[in-house]
Every structure is written in structure tokens, then in C-alpha cells.
């Protein structure tokens, strides 16, 4: 598929996924009801549900998916490793330890958010300080530092889950598997996504070169050290924003870029915007299903990102070989 065609197709899926997300939930709405409610002329339940609950939720799901997918693209270029995802450098581990510790102490939503933010920042600084040597073209140290830190956080997460009791555990599991019901700071997240996405697309030529190897990139005129620092912090900011919106939602950041590549688009100029669109639409779909399937009970969205994504990717992979 040509990059342009794929991008146009993905652009068309955005209104479809939004429509699907707005129509479904514990109170199903017909398309015409959604339309009237969006116009906001009458003050009925539908209007209220749509403006107060569904629209913010769908916007949060989309921006969160976009952030994760973009972060995945940048990290895969930085680490030149197809298994890199937004959580590989320990950022989500730090955030999870922060969030769970706050929950264990019975903190409210705002304190939990702040605590997870602090945990993520500490992880970012620790991995960068320990793992990055300026002028050294060896990125494995960074990667391994992140993986080691993640393992340490994993142990702490298990400890916190063991110490927690009853209802606390459920809240913690929701955080760990991703949950978009408490999203805050939506306008800022959209601003970050659009700004970083635009910058990355403009600078995509350098990313193409960088993905081909560090010495090669330097030989072709890329200031490798500066790019590495820039990519690391850009990906870190995106990941932190996504974690703040929806906890650690798995699968999106790792797999959306690969899905686009498997469809035959790998130049970053198209890979970046396509991955953002696919990640956003995909997470809206998964989140809507998480609200619908067991309605009125809501399930963690992370379950659906994996359940939906795994078969599609396995099919794409087998088709290729």
C-alpha cells in the first residue's frame, strides 16, 4: 500500500472510531441521537452523557494512543531495537511504583497522579544519568539500564500488591493494566502530542538515517549525540503524558509502529503520522469495548488492546512470511 493511501485510510478511521466511541457505553445512543446531542440544542440525558463523559473519554483515549504510538516510534529509532516500547526504559515502572505506593497509603486521585509523576521523573533521570555517556556510541548501556531498573520496579510492584488489601488491589490492577476513566489534563496532552508529532515529522529524515546505525548516521552528517538526548527526552515526555492519562496501557506503543511497517510503510515521514492515527483510533476502539462488553462494569482497557491487537498482528506477520 502506498504511504499516502494508508495515511488517507487511517484518517478516515478517525471519525469512525470517534462515532463508535460516542455511541456505545452503558447508555447506547443511536447515531442521530449523538448528532443532536453534539449540536447541544436540548438539555436531555444524552447531551449530558455525551459532553460530560463520552467526549472527554474518547478524546483521552485517542490522545493517549497517539502519545504511546509516537513514543514507540521514537524509541525504536533511538534504540534501534524492534522490541523497544515506551515502557522499556523503566519510566512506567517508576510511575507504577509511585502510583501504587500512594494508593497503598490511601491517597486520593490527585496525590496518586503526583506520586506516579514523581516516580516517572526519578526513573527518567536515573536511567539517563546512569545509562547515557555523551560521545559514546553505544546505546546498549541505556537500554540495559532501563531494563534493569524495570526489573527492580517489577519487584517493588509485586511487593506493593502483596501489601495491599481488598479494594486497593483492584484499583492497583486497573492502574497497571491501563484505565482511562480518571483522565486529566486533556488539552495539555493534545498540545504535547501535536507539537512533538509535528517536530518529529519535520525531522523525520534524520530518524531514517539514525535507524540505519549510529556510525552510518554520523558518517552521513547526523550529530548523533544531540539526537540521542533529544529523542530520549521527547519519548520520555510522551510516555509520562500517556501514563498520567491512562496508567500503563500495554501493546499500543510497541505494536502500532510495527503494524504500519508490516503494511509497507517505513519512512518516518509517513510512519510517524500514520502510527499516531492508528494508535489513537485503536485505543478509542479498545476503550469503548472495555466500557461496553461488561456494561455497566468497566474493564481495564489494557486487556482489550492486547486481545484486539494480538490476532491482527499475528495475521499480518504470517501473511508477510
Amino acid at each position, binding site marked *: 500500500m502506498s504511504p499516502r493511501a494508508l495515511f488517507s485510510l487511517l484518517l478516515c478511521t478517525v471519525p469512525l472510531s470517534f462515532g463508535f466511541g460516542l455511541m456505545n457505553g452503558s447508555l447506547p445512543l443511536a447515531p442521530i441521537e449523538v448528532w443532536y446531542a453534539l449540536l447541544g440544542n436540548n438539555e436531555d440525558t444524552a447531551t449530558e452523557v455525551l459532553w460530560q463523559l463520552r467526549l472527554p473519554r474518547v478524546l483521552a483515549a485517542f490522545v493517549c494512543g497517539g502519545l504511546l504510538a509516537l513514543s514507540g516510534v521514537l524509541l525504536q529509532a533511538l534504540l*534501534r*531495537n*524492534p522490541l523497544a516500547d515506551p515502557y522499556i526504559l523503566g519510566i512506567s515502572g517508576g510511575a507504577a511504583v509511585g502510583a501504587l505506593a500512594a494508593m497503598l497509603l490511601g491517597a486520593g486521585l490527585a496525590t496518586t497522579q503526583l506520586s506516579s509523576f514523581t516516580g516517572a521523573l526519578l526513573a527518567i533521570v536515573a536511567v539517563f544519568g546512569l545509562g547515557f555517556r555523551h*560521545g559514546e*556510541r553505544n546505546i546498549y548501556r541505556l537500554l540495559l539500564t532501563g531494563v534493569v531498573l524495570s526489573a527492580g520496579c517489577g519487584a517493588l510492584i509485586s511487593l506493593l500488591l502483596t501489601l495491599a488489601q481488598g479494594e486497593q488491589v483492584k484499583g492497583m490492577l486497573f492502574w497497571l493494566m491501563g484505565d482511562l476513566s480518571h483522565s486529566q489534563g486533556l488539552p495539555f496532552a493534545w498540545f504535547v502530542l501535536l507539537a512533538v508529532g509535528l517536530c518529529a515529522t*519535520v*525531522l523525520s*529524515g*534524520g530518524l*531514517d*538515517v539514525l*535507524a*540505519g*546505525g*549510529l*556510525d*552510518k548516521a*554520523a*558518517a*552521513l*552528517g*547526523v*550529530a*548523533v549525540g544531540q539526537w540521542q538526548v533529544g529523542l530520549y527526552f521527547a519519548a520520555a515526555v510522551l510516555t509520562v503524558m500517556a501514563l498520567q492519562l491512562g496508567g500503563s496501557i500495554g501493546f499500543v506503543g510497541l505494536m502500532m509502529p510495527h503494524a504500519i*511497517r508490516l503494511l509497507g510503510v*517505513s*519512512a518516518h*515521514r509517513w510512519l510517524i503520522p500514520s502510527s499516531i492515527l492508528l494508535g489513537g483510533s485503536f485505543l478509542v476502539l479498545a476503550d469503548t469495548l472495555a466500557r461496553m462488553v461488561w456494561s455497566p462494569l468497566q474493564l481495564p482497557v489494557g486487556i482489550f488492546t492486547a486481545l484486539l491487537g494480538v490476532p491482527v498482528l499475528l495475521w499480518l506477520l504470517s501473511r508477510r512470511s
Partner: protein
Amino acid sequence: MQQAFNNPVLETHKLTVAIGGKVICRELDLTIRPGECWGVLGQNGVGKTTLLRTMAGLHMLQSGMVNWNGVALAAHTRRNLAQHLGVLLQNEGGEFWGSVQEYVLLGRFPYRTSLFGYNAQDEALAQQALAQMELEGLAQRPYNTLSGGEQQRAAIAQALAQQAQCYLLDEPLQHLDLRHQAQTMQVFSQLKEQGCALMMVLHDTLWAQRCCDHVLLLFADGHALHGTAQELLTRAHLEALYQCPLRELSLEGERWFVAGV
């Protein structure tokens, strides 16, 4: 004009290079001028690649300096350097998911002015490089589905698209079949005739004799010999270099060196 043409492009002054505590060369003085072709020979692990990477500014030198056009390498921006100095690496260590054509087009990255892509001239030069390496038929294939030899030719095509004045080539003939070895060396000879300077790591002494006018012999103890190919590519020097007995065969004015068993 003649004077300017003969100014050295790449020079080393008292260059000492080490890697992991092992000294590769001590106080090496080399002068590479336009139109010269240098062969670098030595045993495995003697540091040929590291020396080449140092001369490309990709490896920190211990002491001394490497100059491009009379100015230290470090004083040039990477982009400026990449417009003049092409490097063919032995091992790229990257993942490239795009087509062969897109891969070769990356050679034009140092000249890219638009943020949104490559211009028609870049495309034409990439196409020309693909043709030179007989890769037109593979242009649309995904790069990572190519064989080792085809990937090597694509890497050379990428370097050719870069249109550098000086090339540092690390084992340019690796993985190539006999026909493509000959054809690649012919392309390099044409570059040399056009005034391009070349320095290549080779293991085949025959290609060194045919194409190189100068050679650099790197010995395992960190000393180096350099001079014209004629005076250095002798059995005595090569036996000392590779530390094994060699047999010399002559045919139609060319000399082959074959390792004795």
C-alpha cells in the same frame, strides 16, 4: 591549479590510536591526495577498521591529529564533513525497513535542504548509483530481504550517491562474487581517475596491486609501513605482515600471493 589539485585532502599527524588498551598505530603520518588510492592491509584484529573509523572521525584518537583539508576533523560539523568524506562501514549495526532505493537515497542526506524530502537531483543521483552497482532490478525490494552481497552493493551505491571527494572503505569487497568484485573495483578506479581519493581495507593482495598506488601495512605490534604499492607489496613484506609463508605466482605480469600450507 595543479598545486591546489595536489593539496592533501586527508592527513594524519603523529596519530596514535588505541582501542581497549591495545595500541593500533603510533605517531602515524599519512598524507592522502586527490587521485590516490590507498590499500590498508594487515592481519585480522590488527586495527584496520578502528584506524579507518578514526580517520572518519568516528573513533576518539589517543594523540596527534587527523586533518581534513588542513583543518582538524573535530572542527568540521558532521554535515559538512559528510558532504566531502564518504565512509563504507564493515558492519552497520542498524535496522532498515525501507526499500533499496530509499536506502541508497539516504546517501543524499548530507545535502538535503528541504525538511520534507529529497529533490529531483538527489533522486537522479541515487538512480545513477543504483545503476552503477547493477541494482536497478532490486530498487523496489525491501532492503532487509537482500542477500549479503546485494546489501554490500547497496551500501556501496549509497556511498556513491554521497558524491564525496574522499572515500574510506572498510572491506568494500566483502560478500561480493567475482564479477561484482571486478565491477566494483572498476567503479572505484573511475572515481580515482576523476580525482577522488580512496582508502580501502583489503584482504586480497591482487586487488591491492591492481588498483592501489599506495599501501599501508599495519603490523600486530603497532608499527606500520606505508609507501607505494610497488615497493611494499613484495613477498618479504607480506610474509612479515601475515606471519605465514607465502608462495608467489606470476601470470601475465601480475603476481599472486598464496598462503603455503
